[in-house]
């Protein structure tokens, strides 16, 4: 239904798009800007002296080490959240819980999802120290479940509920046990949902900052966000190399979001929609 206000609406939307895009274009420009140091003479969006030199700051053993750390923690946290979250979501969706324990469980999931992560940080520090996991990537993978697990359960719960129960009943009549039912009926139908959930978990873990800051002390174990934070809070920041690192740190997420564009709303609403 096209109506006369369409033109003005279009202009307003494009103004919004420019505001969204401008800082990102600046990042792109600065990554290829050759004047070096913190100096910017003119507010240009095009590099005055284009160069690839800033990217040589990315391909150093130091930055590559952080990149590898980020990848390890992200994959580990995502797999752990799916492995623990999927069976829990299935159990919650298919019911049979005594005395409303499922409601209690869901309430606990929600509470954890909404609790500010800093409010758990001090006891978590003690837990990690107790198990000798302070300053380790494995420790980070485990504490990231504070964010990842409630998210995984909520989102997967919706996908399990979407599966008609009759499919599974048919499998039961054929004599399939629970494990077989999950692997041959439930998981194949849910594969797109699991993939979308995994991608959101990847984004979540890739960007996490607080726990990486608190529980990792050795610079060699830093992830990309904590490394970038140390670069920005220095007195003299070299924006060229920083922009190049920022660009490289953003690319995996940008690529993944392209893949899940359709289920984006579901994910951003925290799987609650």
């Amino acid at each position, binding site marked *: *239904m*096209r109506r006369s*206000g369409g033109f003005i609406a279009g202009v307003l939307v494009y103004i919004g798009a420019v505001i969204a895009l401008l800082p990102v274009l600046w990042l792109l420009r600065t990554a290829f800007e050759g004047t070096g140091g913190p100096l910017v003479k003119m507010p240009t969006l095009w590099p005055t002296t284009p160069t690839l030199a800033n990217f040589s700051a990315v391909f150093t053993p130091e930055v590559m080490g952080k990149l590898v750390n980020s990848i390890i923690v992200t994959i580990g946290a995502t797999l752990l959240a799916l492995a623990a979250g999927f069976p829990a979501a299935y159990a919650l969706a*298919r019911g049979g819980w005594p005395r409303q324990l499922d409601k209690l469980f869901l309430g*606990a999931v929600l*509470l954890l999802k909404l609790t500010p992560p800093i409010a758990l940080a001090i006891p978590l520090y003690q837990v990690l120290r107790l198990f000798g996991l302070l300053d380790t990537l494995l420790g980070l993978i485990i504490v990231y479940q504070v964010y990842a697990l409630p998210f995984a*359960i909520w989102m997967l719960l919706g996908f399990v509920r979407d599966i008609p129960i009759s499919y599974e009943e048919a499998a039961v009549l054929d004599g399939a046990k629970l494990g077989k039912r999950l692997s041959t009926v439930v998981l194949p139908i849910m594969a797109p949902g699991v993939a979308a959930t995994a991608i959101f978990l990847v984004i979540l873990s890739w960007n996490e900052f607080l726990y990486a800051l608190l529980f990792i002390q050795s610079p060699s174990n830093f992830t990309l966000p904590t490394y970038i934070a140390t670069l920005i809070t220095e007195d003299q920041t070299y924006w060229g190399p920083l922009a190049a690192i920022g660009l490289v740190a953003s690319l995996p997420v940008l690529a993944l979001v392209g893949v899940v564009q359709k289920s984006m709303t579901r994910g951003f609403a925290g799987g609650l*929609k």
Partner: protein
Amino acid sequence: MQLSSRSLFLLAAPALILFGVLALYPLGRNLLLSFFETDYGLEGAVFIGLDNYTRLLGDYFFNRALVNTVVFTVVSTLAEVGLGLMLALLVNRAIVGKRLVMPVLVLPYVLSTMVVTAIWRAWFNYENGFLNVSLKFLGLPGVEWLTDRNLAMWSLIGVDVWQTVPVAFLVLLAGLQSIPEETNEAARIDGAGPLRMLLTITLPLLWPHLLLATLLRCVESFKIFDKAFALTGGGPGNATSTLSMFVHQLGFRFFDIGRASAASIIMVVIAGALASVYAWQIMRSGDET
């Protein structure tokens, strides 16, 4: 088709164990330690009852952080939902190049928060940041975006709004698209103008989505730590210190674990109050579908 108690338990066990270790134990320990004066655990701790709580409520820095956090949460949530609603209403009409513009509108949210903070720290730089250089280019004086006590909070809010408008936008756009076209059509035939349609049809039907977007943003904004940490460090003075930063400082810099635990518990109580509204709304909208 119900599951046996044994399979239920086995399926839920990994998640339950993680919950126990990552949520229940920490919350319990925080609650316990909040009644003690201690620099780490229970050894050598002195029981002081509610002193940590009463001292916090009279503490200038705590109150400052509390007020800052509330201001940040309320203002950024209202701005994000308001702008998100405007964008969703506009995009929901026929727009030229919608497919092209959608990814651009969502772009700020998919950048890593630390990268976003880096960009804006560079833009806000007084000497040669993009904003002040642009102002100088136009012959205008520079602005102390991050160093002016009264302005720093607004700069921080601005960055958060820039980054997270897409969340409200996407939730509300999905809501708008779920309103059947026939409803609008019927109203139009009855002679309703655009404003009347917005107020009497669109907004009431969109209400659950508006509430969801608002609660979602409230809960997230209340946690604010990383942007404030890397953009202003809580300064100038305490102008942008937040509750998360306050707990971080007390616990990890000053090792006043008793008081940090009490502050954590206060944060959980506030988040819990928001959570109960949120839970109530989800249960309700869950019943409808």
